[in-house]
């Protein structure tokens, strides 16, 4: 065990993956000698050489096109998109190519070895273009897996599993926690399962569902709720696609109530998919409407970031409203 922050946990996972398999290659803007603008890829070029960890020209569509080709050849690319906000130039390569590669070829070819890493999320005074949480844009795309860790331990285990999974994985890192989240992380190799949610805290009155950096907010709100006598069950979804309907529904059957929270704008966010599915499957168990506490339906603001965010106070109020419905 060692104390690591989230960046160190990711760096550590990359080192293990690159050591184990020399087909693993890490690339993206500034990831080489410099180690990435957040330093997630520090020292990889020194350790594994410039051929396996390298800078690319500044083109996200190129990075993902290159990564797709490389993966289809049998290598194991771990491509970095510098900010989640800059993944959109690569949208066609990801949504039309990565996700459909295996299907269109009848399984003859695939890019299953591909992992895309990208930092996402707000709370860092980043404004419109350094704050977005684009998971829902990708969650409408069969063929992709989407994974979001909430802390260093999760990050390492989920990233190793993502790199080794035989499906393309979009691995979204909560950049607000990069240095803020520190925890004990085993130095040895381990994996955490994709597609499985985790019940972080057991509770009986309401289920709180979130992922990534938003988990902290849920815990804070749950503490407040606890003080007024409301017992919250907290669930980390971990995988957005495919997602763990079973665990979520079991929890809702137990508590009778569900609140989902994410930073992305409410309309069309992934909370809507969860709410739509759960109301269908747990209709008779629901004692109140499923609540969504999300970002407002605006671009991500700057001066009003605090007001925009689905913080613990908004979650706490929504918990009370839902329980007292």
């Amino acid at each position, binding site marked *: 065990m060692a104390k690591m922050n989230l960046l160190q946990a990711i760096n550590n996972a990359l080192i293990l993956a690159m050591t184990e398999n020399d*087909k693993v290659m890490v690339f993206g803007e500034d990831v080489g000698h410099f180690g990435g603008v957040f330093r997630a890829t520090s020292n990889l070029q020194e350790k594994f050489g410039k051929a396996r960890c390298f800078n690319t020209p500044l*083109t996200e569509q190129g990075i993902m*096109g290159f990564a797709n*080709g490389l993966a289809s*050849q049998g290598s194991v690319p771990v491509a970095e998109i510098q900010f989640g906000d800059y993944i959109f130039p690569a949208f*066609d390569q990801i949504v*039309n190519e990565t996700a459909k590669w295996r299907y*269109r070829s*009848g399984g*003859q070819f695939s890019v299953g070895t591909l992992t895309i890493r990208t930092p996402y999320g707000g709370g860092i005074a980043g404004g419109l273009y350094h704050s977005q949480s684009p998971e829902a844009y990708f969650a409408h795309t069969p063929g992709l897996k989407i994974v979001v860790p909430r802390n260093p331990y999760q990050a390492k285990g989920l990233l190793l599993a993502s790199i080794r999974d035989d499906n393309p994985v979009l691995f979204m890192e909560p950049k607000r926690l990069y240095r803020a989240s520190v925890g004990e992380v085993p130095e040895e190799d381990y994996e955490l399962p994709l597609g499985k949610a985790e019940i972080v805290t057991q509770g009986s009155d309401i289920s709180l569902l979130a992922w990534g950096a938003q988990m902290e907010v849920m815990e804070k709100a749950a503490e407040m709720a606890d003080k007024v006598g409301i017992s919250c069950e907290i669930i980390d979804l971990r995988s957005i696609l495919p997602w763990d309907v079973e665990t979520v529904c079991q929890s809702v059957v137990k508590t009778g109530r569900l609140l989902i929270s994410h930073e992305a704008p409410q309309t069309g966010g992934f909370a809507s998919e969860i709410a739509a599915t759960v109301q269908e499957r747990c209709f008779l168990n629901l004692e109140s409407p499923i609540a969504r506490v999300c970002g407002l339906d605006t671009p991500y603001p700057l001066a009003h970031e605090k007001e925009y965010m689905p913080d613990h106070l908004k979650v706490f109020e929504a918990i009370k409203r839902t329980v007292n419905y």
Partner: protein
Amino acid sequence: MKDRNHLSDVSLTHKVSVIDKGLVDIPMLQILQPDGTPHSDASLPELAQEAVLKIYRTMRFIRVLDERMVAAQRQGRISFYLASTGEEAASVASAAALEPQDMIMSQYREQGALAYRGYSTEAFMNQMFSNEKDPNKGRQMPIHYGDKALNFMTISSPLGTQIPQASGYAYGQKMAGQPAVTICYFGEGAASEGDFHAGLNMAAVLHCPVIFFCRNNGYAISTPAEEQFAGDGIASRGLGYGIKTIRVDGNDAFAVYAATKQAREIALAENCPVLIEAMSYRLAAHSTSDDPTGYRSKEEEARWQAKDPIVRLGNWLKAKGWLDEEQDGKDVDQMRQDVLNELKRVEKVPVCGIDDLVEDVYDTPPWHLKEQLEELKQHIRQYPDAYPKTSGRL
């Protein structure tokens, strides 16, 4: 720390000099004249009789296949087709200059390359009828071929996407130490996509052994080349990326062969990309959904019919005594017959069973796809007549 100077190669001027025509002339390699006679100062590629005949017969076959399948589409037997008439030399002769281990990533008008690799008439048909024998499982429209055993990547409709992909594939080949390159075909229209820029620049910077083979056939559907770009074709761009570039007569099989052969040698020896621009003309309609009479003249087409790549190589073969006119005619008749026979046979092959609808989305179908499949089967059982392709085999 390494000292860098991005001005190290720059010379000075003291007057504003606007560089306008700043490119060297990029001439087009032509070995055979349109009538099939070699240029006197041209050296023919070293190709044995069998090798030239294979190129010739593959072109012939593709012409036949194209004709028959356009007709089949008109008869409503397949939903869509896309012919390569007039451009057979570009794809066939370039494929002939490759090795089997080289990966082919094509656009969609390179059936010649695939045929050269050995894709059978039956395989073509299986794909076009989207049946269960197509290794691509009938998931894409006709002409989106793909064959892992032949190192021919399954075609994808979004244009230009294969260009940076080819750079990545070639990088992987290099890292694996394989004596192989990737060839990436695309049209002059697709070369306007951002992916073109990304792919060529990355290949140059990251030293990828890839041949970018642009078929400049003058049109992208109805859009003529002059509304597509204002520079000297696509070749002129290669120079801007620092990529070695060759322009070739796409209707001259020998020229295409020689250029591709040399490009392959360079790419492999120097671990670098090479750009080939093959000048040709899309004699066919864009596809069976298109009617070119709306945007070009018969005279223009006639001028290019006179440069037919098959006639050109045929004439050379005959002059050389390697091809007998009569036998050639019989061969073509035979090809037509074979295509028709296969067509009739294959159109009866059923599509994949319904389970395949949810296969290959992931490595194995996750719970939600299994659930959706079960519901669907249930539904088909309830209304078997509404889903005749699959209900019989539930």
